[in-house]
């Protein structure tokens, strides 16, 4: 009986070692430890043996069974591995084919720059207000100390809807609209479209501005300079040199125009800056007490500053765009550069 079992062990060991594919291993597993396999049959036949000798045979049978199964499992693992590695040798995709995706759409460069500017001022505690693009002459001019028949009206070519209604020529009317409704302190920015009757390489009849103003007690021209320097450094880089020079706007006094050292030539003088080394980026000033009087603020109590800039101009400077009209042409090749 024992010899019998041991010869099964030897035979099985030989057969398993000889096997050279997974299929043979699987049939050997059935042959020896399947439901009707040789070992299974032997184990079942233990019941026929005298009680006394059962444990001895049982132990040996078990050992042999474990031996054979371990052998089978090892061989099986070996064949599975080699089968997988054969498969991996043949399965191939062309990783250089383009990925399947919809390319991201592009932000309009004007909105890109506008968003950046807005973020700078939101971080300084300004909030956003908007106003109508078709505006009353009163808000666009009169309330901003630009009476009818004043030469300051020549500074802006106006589109008229009626005698009293215009396409706003700047975002400044929103200053008045906001101040009429709210009391200081306030820090507000106003982005939006504005319109002037003008068209060439550097002018389009519609363009974008962002207006900002702050009203509180004790606001000074130094504060205006400080805030606008923060802005210029955030948008054009921390090394940007900023200069303030006197100018005139009817709704601010003192008024200033703000230049930065030309980004192209770094102040040495080139075509972009007309050899001056400087490019103008915005207009600003302390809010004219006449405007405060219009909205019912006491100019002895409150002071404030205001500034306004053209987004197109800033964007052109930032990215070296030389023709303002491309912003509104919607050529895909232009849009996809941003």
């Amino acid at each position, binding site marked *: 009986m024992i010899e019998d079992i041991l010869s099964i062990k030897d035979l099985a060991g030989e057969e398993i070692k000889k096997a050279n594919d997974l299929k043979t291993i699987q049939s050997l597993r059935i042959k020896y430890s399947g439901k009707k396999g040789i070992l299974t049959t032997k184990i079942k036949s233990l019941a026929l043996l005298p009680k006394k000798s059962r444990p001895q045979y049982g132990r040996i049978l078990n050992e042999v069974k474990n031996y054979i199964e371990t052998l089978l499992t090892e061989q099986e693992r070996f064949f599975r591995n080699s089968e997988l590695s054969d498969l991996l040798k043949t399965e191939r995709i062309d990783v250089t*084919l*383009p990925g399947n995706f919809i390319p*991201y*759409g*592009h*932000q*309009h460069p*004007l*909105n890109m720059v506008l968003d950046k500017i807005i973020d700078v001022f939101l971080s300084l*505690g300004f*909030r*956003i207000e908007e106003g*109508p*693009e*078709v505006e009353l002459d009163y808000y666009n001019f009169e309330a901003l100390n630009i009476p009818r*028949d*004043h*030469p*300051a009206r*020549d500074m802006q070519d106006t*589109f*008229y*809807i*009626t005698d009293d*209604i215009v*396409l706003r020529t700047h975002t400044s009317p929103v200053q008045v609209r906001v101040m009429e409704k709210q009391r200081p302190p*306030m*820090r507000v920015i106003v982005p939006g*479209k504005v319109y002037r*009757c*003008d068209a060439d390489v550097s002018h389009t*009849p*519609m363009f974008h501005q962002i207006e900002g103003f*702050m009203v*509180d007690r*004790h606001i*000074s*021209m*130094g*504060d205006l*300079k*400080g805030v606008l320097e923060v802005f210029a450094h955030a948008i054009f880089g921390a090394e940007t040199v900023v200069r*303030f*020079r*006197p*100018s*005139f706007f009817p709704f601010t*006094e*003192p*008024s*200033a125009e703000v230049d930065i050292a030309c980004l192209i030539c770094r102040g040495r003088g080139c075509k972009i800056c*007309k050899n001056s080394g400087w490019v103008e980026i915005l207009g600003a000033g*302390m809010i*004219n*007490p006449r405007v405060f009087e219009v909205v019912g603020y006491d100019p002895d109590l409150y*002071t404030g500053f205001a500034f306004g800039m053209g987004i197109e101009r800033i964007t052109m400077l930032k990215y070296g765009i030389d023709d303002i009209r491309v912003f509104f*042409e*919607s*050529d*895909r090749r232009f849009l996809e550069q941003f």
Partner: protein
Amino acid sequence: MKASLKWLKEFVDFSLTPKEIADTLTMAGLEVEGMEEFEDDTILEINVTPNRADCLSIKGVAREISAILGLPLKEPSIPVFEKEREHLTVEIKEPQLCRRYAGRIIRDVKIAPPPQWLSRHLELHGIRSLNNIVDITNYVLLEMGQPLHAFDMDKLRGSHIVIKKAHPVNKFLTLDNEERILSKDMLLIWDRDVPIAIAGVMGGLNTEVTSSTVNILLESAYFHPISIRRTSRALNLSTESSYRFERGTDIEGIMLALNRATQMILEIAGGDVTATADNYLEPFEPLPISIKFKKINDILGIDIEPSLIEELLRRLGFEVRREGEGIVVIPPSFRQDIQRDIDVIEEIGRLYGYDKIPPTLPAVRIQPHTEDTKRNLIKTIRNSMRSAGYSEVINYSFLNPSVLDKLRLSPDDPRRNVVKIRNPLKKEEDALRTTLIPAILDNVVLNIRRGERSVRLFELSRVFLPSAQGLPKEPLQMAAVYLKEREPSLWHSRHEGFYDLKGTLENIFLELRIKDYSFLATELQEPYLHPGKSCAIKINNQIVGSLGTLHPAVMEALDIKGDISLFGLDIDRLFLNIPSGLTYTPLPKHPYVERDISIIVSQDTPAGDVRATILSIDSQMIESVNLFDVYTGAPIPEGKKSLAFSIRYRAGDRTLTNFEVNAMHSRIIKALEDSLKAELRT
């Protein structure tokens, strides 16, 4: 305004280079926009802001230089002429419009070409040389900023000058031989009852100084800025004179300019002064302004010595007197722009130098921010559109109303009711747009013309709708367009672009957590969309826009072809329909059971109806219904299609039994058979 450096140096001795003087002026508020070099001179091109009428002359600019640099101003010596050999009277009938009028008769002048230096001076400053007399008046205008006019005395009938309005005269021939149509309020200069000049704007041809002139009447006056500006605008005639008068001239400088011109005429053209009249109705009253030092420093954000403040103002020609903790100043007559303390503060800051004001950041009181929900909504939409491959465009707000015909809008379409611009830049584009669609289609046309085969664009902008009273309404709208390439590229799907665009919209709704939306083919027929391939977009039973494939007739009108789909969305209306809160739903504790169903229905049965019918059986237990196949062709009979849905059943409180699911599934099949005449596909 142009200013010769050489001429400026006649008034102030400075040794700065042209570049240095340009920078100095610019940093004091007289922006030098350009410089032109000549062999012996440099001409500065100065941008004089509307408030600085006093700088519209060589002397004015020189005065600024002297104030900035602290150098003395050299005044040429000008004699006074007082000979009275004949009678000259000036009658001002409009004291509001003309506060001062001076005239002078000079006899026996010799009209000749001007000396070379004179004509060159004028030409360098952009004024055409005519003859010695006219050139001298222009020279003085450039030098002192006071416009002068010379009449041929022999063409006048007497020596009584009247200043009054045009009424009843309504036509007048000006020096440039143009007949001007006058309105009754325009101010004229009259030779008793014959008009001889449009006050402050241009003289008449009837009294022109010509080569045969012997005696002249010289005019130097002050006209009201608004009156001159109105006249100049109404006549569309801006002259060197009107430009200065409408900005305000120096009423106190009238005789000085007249004497200066007389001096030059006698020197260059000879002649003899025989009469002078100066009708000065309302003499100039200087206006004292008091300011506290503290206010100056507070507003400018500096700490400047009182003595320096006083010095700076004196250099600008102000009279200054100390009074307590401040000063009282009297601005000079040529500075009509200085009316209040803030005007004086600006002058101090300007001359002190803006660059010396230290930048500071304001100390503020904290104010809470409220969430800008609309801006966030727009941001979300923008990001969704971009992630779906759409690039943002910005189009002009102008509209050529005739393009609405190309969109096939009916004559009574509300979008034809436009806000009109009175003075459009292009005659045809005389309206503000009521829809974003035409412009974005133009964008597609442009891109196709430039060789693009696939384009995805969107725009978020306001449109303008006239309102019965007040300003127009300006709702925010959105338009998107997708030109899908006809020959598919590698991964390109083969379905119509409509579904891509619809998917993009659905994704936006998902992002905005809008659940109750639908696409309804039967409602709202946009005339520019294909009638069989378009629908209304509804949220909470409100139409918020439309989606569809471009109408073939519109494509033909635009001369384009291709698979073009587009949508229009009213963002304001969308905004009103966004659910506000978000509530967590606990995760289901019991498994779902999934069953597929495949049916054959008539070709024109919308899949949406099938889905709705399925859902209507038990909205509690049916968790989801997903269409996964649409098939036509053999073996499906002609005119029919096969639709396959996968249905998920789930109960909240127990695991569903096969028995329950089978029962529900049978009810669904029955309902589909009954209401949609569907057959189960086997």
